[in-house]
């Protein structure tokens, strides 16, 4: 499932997006969504934006989102970077180490299709060439607010799917 690139949510404040996220997380993940970030050779721009989510301005931990140190604890993998050859095996290992059910999100244009590195001999052109990707967050890099909006959207999709299966 790929998000439309023009999905924007400039109108809303972070607290409002966060409040909605919190409700979803409460329902779907019992109050806490654990994310493991995997850097597969990114330019570090996406990392900066993801790190910003934890700073005092965004502070996503108040909404129940936390970045964890081990994929064993994670519900969601956020993969950045175009996947260099050297990181291929590490990515597969991380994917295997994450318990099922898991959500894989490719963050940034590099991760979606290789971005500006596309076609280089050193990269494998996107995460979905290596492991199954559920969602994509476009942008080079996506701003923290964009990431939050996409997260909300992802949870909405998951919730709808969940309802569909229960019916």
């Amino acid at each position: 499932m790929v998000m439309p690139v023009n999905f924007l949510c400039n109108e809303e404040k972070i607290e409002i997006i966060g409040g909605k996220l919190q409700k979803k997380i409460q329902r779907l993940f019992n109050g806490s969504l654990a994310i493991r970030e995997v850097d597969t050779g990114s330019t570090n721009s996406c990392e900066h934006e993801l790190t910003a989510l934890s700073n005092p301005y965004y502070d996503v931990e108040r909404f129940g989102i936390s970045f964890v140190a081990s994929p064993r604890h994670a519900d969601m993998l956020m993969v950045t970077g175009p996947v260099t050859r050297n990181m291929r095996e590490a990515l597969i290992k991380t994917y295997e180490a994450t318990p099922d059910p898991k959500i894989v999100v490719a963050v940034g244009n590099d991760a979606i299709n290789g971005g500006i590195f596309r076609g280089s001999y050193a990269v494998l052109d996107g995460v979905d060439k290596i492991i199954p990707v559920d969602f994509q967050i476009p942008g080079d890099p996506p701003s923290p607010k964009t990431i939050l909006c996409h997260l909300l959207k992802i949870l909405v999709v998951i919730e709808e799917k969940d309802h569909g299966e229960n019916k």
Partner: protein
Amino acid sequence: MLNLISAQFSFFLALLLLAIGAVGSLTFAKKDWLANLWGNGLAILASVSGLVAAVKVLIFNEAFTYTINSTFSNLSLSLAVDKLSAFFVLIISLVAFLSSIYGIGYVKHFYNKYNLGVLGFFYNIFLVGMLFVVSAHNGFFFLIVWEIMSLASYFLVIFENKENNNIKAGSLYLVMTHVGTAFIMLAFLLLYRATGSLDFSVIKANIGNASLLIKNLVFIFALIGFGTKAGIIPFHIWLPSAHPAAPTHVSALMSGVMIKTGIYMFIRLFVEILSGTELWWGATILIIGIISSLLGVLYALTEHDIKRLLAYHSIENIGIILLGLGSAMIFLSLNLKTLAALSLVAALFHTLNHATFKALLFMGAGSVISQTHTRNIEEYGGLIKFMPQTALYFLIGSLAISALPPFNGFFSEWLTFQTIFSGIQIPDILTKSMFILAAGSLAFTGGLAAACFVKAFGVTFLARPRSVAVLQARESGFFMRFSMAALALATLILGIFAGSVSKIILGAVNNLTGFQRVSGIFFTQKQTFELSNGFAAISTPMIFVILSVVLLLIYGIVKILTSKRKVKIGRTWDCGTKLEPQMEITATSFARSIVIIFKGALKPSKQLEIEYRDADMRYFPKSRNVELGIVDVYRFYFYQPLRDLMIRLSGYAKNVQIGILNVYIAYIFLILLILLFVQS
């Protein structure tokens, strides 16, 4: 069938079989497999015969004495097997039986390398020596068989003589054991002077003639002499080097049984013959027990050589046995016979238990060594996947030695605790504080022993292989597995039926002079053991049942709760890198934190060597080398100065030896003159 054979007959049959085994293996030395089968096979038959003898004496009260008189009454061959002797014959035979079976499988890797005829010869002679030692009833005869036992074990220690270290260990053992024997001789000569006989029963009858000074001297000399064999600290230094050097089934016998002959003579001499009159004797033994048990286990923690580790645990367990024996002697001097009997039961029970689980552990270690060809536990790792049965038996041995229920070590340590608690009730403040110290050290020892076996088992069997040799390891052969399984079962049975066993041991104690009428120390009903003063009670079968039920319950609950869960087996999460054996916790790193806590006692050493790329500009190190170890305190502060002193004294003595014949004649003349004056 059992009634047809008398205890005496089967005891002598055992000796005869061992003699045939010894001579036969030399005869068949040319053929390795025949020498192996003959030497070990006859030892097996002899141990069965010995077991029958011991059981007949212990249960059917068939104690016997046997004497061949000679014109010199002191040189007569005199044997007496009472219940105490029979108890030790039982331990010797039990361990010898399983060690010999183990030996059949174990010595195969010596084929075409060493002379197995010689091994069979000394092995059987060693067993003969031990059987005689615990049955000898005459001082002179005792010294002869003691020497036979020591020499036979010396030759077994240096059996693998292609390794230089073994020769060194053997020499150290030879020197130490003869120093011990010298002290034992002194003790016997003093007894002879005081009582006019070397026969144990005559000495016992006439001990009243001996002055207190003589008795005290006998105590000190015997303590050093037999203590050297038992491996008490500080006379233990031969033990950690000699036991690992011997072939494994011999190590099991030496560590499990031979050092107990020292305990046997402690009991025979101090409790029965000298009848433990002095309070300070018991106190000394108790303090030696405290020191040996604590330091023994601490040194074991620092060891990386698996057999040396086990040897240090022998010192620890001798310490625990001495805690029981020391309490017994203190109670005896205070005329508390029932408590003394209880302590003796505790000490003897632990002797039996230690023999079983230490033999088991040595055999487990031997199986590992025979597959990996190294004794360094840092080079093991992950062996549970290659030798699952050996791992299980070693685990059982580890649980038993760590005094965990339902295995036998738990019960005897519990009993030792009870005697120490009874000692704390003595009003005298000095004695009381000593017992409090003993209780603390015993508890501490138990904890450290458990820590040490977490290390020994974990580093050996768990995690990933740390050397190529481990990858080629295979499960050991049938004979070796059989012995280990039998001993593992024995530790469990001795633990569960501890009530009955302690009753039999009490029978042996009641057999000692002064303890005949002591009874009602404890009750056993359906294996439930209760001290008669109502202070404590325990039911070992109940513990076993509860533990089994709890384990089954946990297994069942987990099974039910996880029945709907899908199990997925994947790789261990390693942060995307490759898991390497270097990442594992090693024995050194596990023990180091504990060693640092006890650095006052252990004196850890650390050597850091850095080689720089450019010696003038010390910025880029080429290699770093850290060596962690501990200082051998005894060698540096006790034996080295002693040795230097001896050499200096010998230097002075050399001045007398001029090498001119006339001077020597003058010496003789002078001595004659002095003697004449003294006589007149």
